[in-house]
């Protein structure tokens, strides 16, 4: 960008769009690094209790719907592909394609959340929601094939299940309006091949949310031998 008129998206304190983009990208990665630790603290609590009460966690894990979990994993990977294609469309300056791929990402993200609602509803029906709707010890014991104190320890697993998947779902609920906002800005023609940093950074966020699920799926759904 050596021409006389700088790009309208270039902030005055940056030498060039490349430097501006590098700076913004690093900022996004700082955020993602702290998100790793944010989820990491939760994963630490999970690891600790999984080690203390492994047979209980295994029994509870078998109660989750493996098919729905695997389906949702596939849906989220598809949404990562559509997001990557939106970023690609932005990089090569195809404005209409940016909007189309972003809307596809929102659609797939909504499917994921819809499936999550079905799963949460099932836990509610089975009275497996600690603190809000937890069944009598004998009912829960029969449901999970557990006995005695293990029934109480199952609350630890389901608290972590709702905590981890809920935090993940919250990230998607935050992400979807951001993607819609970026799609609106793309529709207005704000992004071109030279300037598309917001599309790229939104992509980084969405892919990170996908990575969190890539770990949550085996940790919650696939404990032990099925």
């Amino acid at each position: 960008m050596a021409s006389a008129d700088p790009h309208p998206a270039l902030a005055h304190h940056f030498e060039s769009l490349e430097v501006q983009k590098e700076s913004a990208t690093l900022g996004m990665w700082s955020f993602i690094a702290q998100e790793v630790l944010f989820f990491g603290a939760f994963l630490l609590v999970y690891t600790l209790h999984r080690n203390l009460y492994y047979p209980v966690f295994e029994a509870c894990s078998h109660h989750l719907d493996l098919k729905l979990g695997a389906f949702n994993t596939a849906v989220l990977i598809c949404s990562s592909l559509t997001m990557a294609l939106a970023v690609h469309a932005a990089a090569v300056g195809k404005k209409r394609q940016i909007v189309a791929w972003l809307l596809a990402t929102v659609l797939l993200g909504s499917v994921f959340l819809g499936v999550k609602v079905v799963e949460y509803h099932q836990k509610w029906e089975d009275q497996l929601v600690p603190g809000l709707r937890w069944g009598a010890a004998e009912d829960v014991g029969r449901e999970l094939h557990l006995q005695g104190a293990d029934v109480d320890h199952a609350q630890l697993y389901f608290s972590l299940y709702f905590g981890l998947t809920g935090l993940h779902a919250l990230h998607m609920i935050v992400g979807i309006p951001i993607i819609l906002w970026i799609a609106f800005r793309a529709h207005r023609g704000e992004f071109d091949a030279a300037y598309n940093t917001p599309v790229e950074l939104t992509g980084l966020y969405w892919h990170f949310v996908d990575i969190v699920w890539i770990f949550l799926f085996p940790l919650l759904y696939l404990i032990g031998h099925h």
Partner: protein
Amino acid sequence: MSERGEHGGHVVSVPTYVGVFLALMALTGVTVWASGQDFGALNTGVALGIAVTKATLVVLFFMHVKYGSSLVKLYIVAAIVWLGILISITMSDYASRGWLGPRQSTAPYQIEDR
């Protein structure tokens, strides 16, 4: 498999994205299949190994880190190291409770009816 952007930035090609996507879907199938096999003590290791492979693919290609700056790579390594410190030091503390004293239990607290 990549092309240079109009303004010097690195643009990952569509076939690369689709290839990574297919690998991620295949690995999801593998992890579900593996959960039905009994690897004994390695069950968790196999599941986590596949998850780490998938995450690495997403970070390198979807998140463009393969083509990114060294500083971004350093941030990612730092995040992983911090996560490792958080989990390994805490777990080693819990695992070693009672090694020196008379207390037998490794649990940090006792649940009344246990």
